[in-house]
């Protein structure tokens, strides 16, 4: 089937891109000034451990062999030992990645859904005051500086009003309590997640709304909208059944293009709210010259973006029959 072939091709492409990123990172690491060995092996390590790590990572080999080791290590999940945590990097990633995916997907899905819904309505009322004001509001949301608005929220809602915890993802007391059930724990995470989520939501919803609005306005100029009206359909049906499904398509493309941008914002949000995610870990590792951790975090973030891109492509193909059939 055409559709499967397309998705398959897209996956191959994404894999090729990932491989290029992997290679690029290797080259950068070796091009940059400084000794690769001292960057991968913590100074305090015992000589025995250090030489084992060096031979594991292939750092004593010629460059091309090092590259092969590097690729092999990626697929076997061996990224070395984090300086800061003193643990294998893969364990840290394993713990952080789900938290990032939770925050990232929730925020993207919620803000996209809300933005698309409101954008659809606002476009319908183009030229009326509601359109003008919502558009301006969306523009303001879109241009707010994310770390600042995050700090502001903490200051207002967590510090002054005290509705939300200042930072973190869980309250240890709740989790230590053996009687705490799944729901209690989930509610605790939800309570911590609300403010970061709100920050990301506000930053993203504006752009999704604006994109949906302009896409909808373009669609409303199309001839089949005229056909739908001429058929005697109600305005609501024209909007929801004929205009909106077509207007979704460019929005989905834009969401795909914006994922990298969203992950930037995600990393900033995680940092300000001390949300234990992989983005915060990357920024933390970079600040502390924890190279093994930083490189691995970056690779996994790229992987998240690429996988999300493939999902978006599948969604697009699902929405557009011209691709499916």
């Amino acid at each position, binding site marked *: 089937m055409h559709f499967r072939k397309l998705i398959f091709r897209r996956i191959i492409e994404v894999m090729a891109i990932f491989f290029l990123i992997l290679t690029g990172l290797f080259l950068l690491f070796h091009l940059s000034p400084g000794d690769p060995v001292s960057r991968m092996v913590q100074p305090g390590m015992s000589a025995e451990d250090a030489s084992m790590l060096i031979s594991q990572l292939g750092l004593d080999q010629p460059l091309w062999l090092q590259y092969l080791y590097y690729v092999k290590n990626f697929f076997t999940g061996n990224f070395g030992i984090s300086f800061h945590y003193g643990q294998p990097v893969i364990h840290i990633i394993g713990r952080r990645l789900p938290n990032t995916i939770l925050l990232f997907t929730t925020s993207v899905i919620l803000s996209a859904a809300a933005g698309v819904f409101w954008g659809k309505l606002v476009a319908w009322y183009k030229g009326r005051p509601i359109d003008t004001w919502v558009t301006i509001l969306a523009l303001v949301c879109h241009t707010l500086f994310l770390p600042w608005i995050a700090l502001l929220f903490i200051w207002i809602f967590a510090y002054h009003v005290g509705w939300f915890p200042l930072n973190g993802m869980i309250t240890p007391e709740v989790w230590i309590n053996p009687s705490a059930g799944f729901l209690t724990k989930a509610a605790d995470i939800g309570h911590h997640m609300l403010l970061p989520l709100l920050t990301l939501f506000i930053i993203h919803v504006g752009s999704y709304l604006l994109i949906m609005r302009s896409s909808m306005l373009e669609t409303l100029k199309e*001839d*089949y909208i005229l*056909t739908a009206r001429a*058929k*005697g359909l*109600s*305005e609501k049906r024209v909007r929801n059944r004929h205009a909106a499904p077509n207007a979704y*398509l460019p929005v989905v493309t834009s969401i795909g293009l914006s994922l990298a941008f969203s992950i930037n914002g995600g990393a900033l949000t995680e940092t300000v709210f001390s949300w234990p995610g992989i983005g915060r870990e990357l920024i933390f590792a970079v600040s502390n010259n924890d190279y093994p951790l930083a490189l691995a975090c970056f690779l996994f973030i790229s992987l998240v973006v690429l996988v999300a891109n493939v999902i978006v492509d599948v969604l697009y193909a699902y929405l557009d029959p011209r691709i499916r059939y």
Partner: protein
Amino acid sequence: MALLEVENLTIAYKTRRETAIAADRVNFSLERGRSVGIVGESGCGKTTLGMALLRLLPSNGFVKKGRVTFDGMDLLSLPDTRMQRVRWKRIAMIFQAAMNAWNPVQRIGDQILEAIRTHDPKITKAEAVKQVEQLYELVEIPADRIFDFPHQYSGGMKQRAIIAMALACSPDLIIADEPTTALDVIVQDQILQKIKAIQKEKNIALIFISHDIGVVAGVCHEIMVMYRGKIVEAGRREEVFEVPVHPYTRALLSSYLTIDGVFEIRDKQSPAPPCTPAEPLSKELCGYVHLCPHASEACRSRPPQWREITPTHKVLCSLCR
């Protein structure tokens, strides 16, 4: 009383700088089972006129004055919900072939079903599908293609499917706006024959809008020539072709290339057989005066007037005496 009566219809567009008149004091009437063709160059207002009848003008277009009476109803003052019931049930439209009149993400069959079921909520889906199958038989598309998506159809098939959809609710009037432009000559001919046959068989009134006077003449009983927003000549097609009076009509016909050579206007003399003046309607000058080879001082100073050549053949020109 005629099925459709258009009186003094004036349509304008608001642009950033001005209000532009797109159709100026248009008058005509159409009986059930008759067909009228509107011919004119691009931008003359013929499409606007068609859209105005269904109240589908773009948001910056509006009817400045005039009346449209359809089967006793005043279409321009009908409430929106009632107008929605007139659309397609009573007046259907065949859109330009070049337009993407089909919603690309919905199956063609579903779009036709939607038209049927909107106007007849009680009909079951199976019955409606059956109707669509009959329509497809009529327009000669295999029934197994009903639930294809638009991009799987060829240009000619899309156009035939549009005709099928136009007939879905058995309307009293069909407005066809350039239904064959951008189609190949052979396909165009097939579609025109189809439209003509169906119109005759079902006794539907037809308004046929085209830039091609040859195409219009093949389909319609009557012809109206439109120039710069005004109808400049109207009459039965034989009258217009045999005794074209308005200089623009004459230019249009004498530049029409047929397979046998240039179309020859039988009456070589420049305007016009004697005729009796009709009611003066126009206040402004003739729009064709800058291109007209016969324009006189009078044309530049006085507005043209409607003249009656025969009871069915009228022309808006000062040269006609």
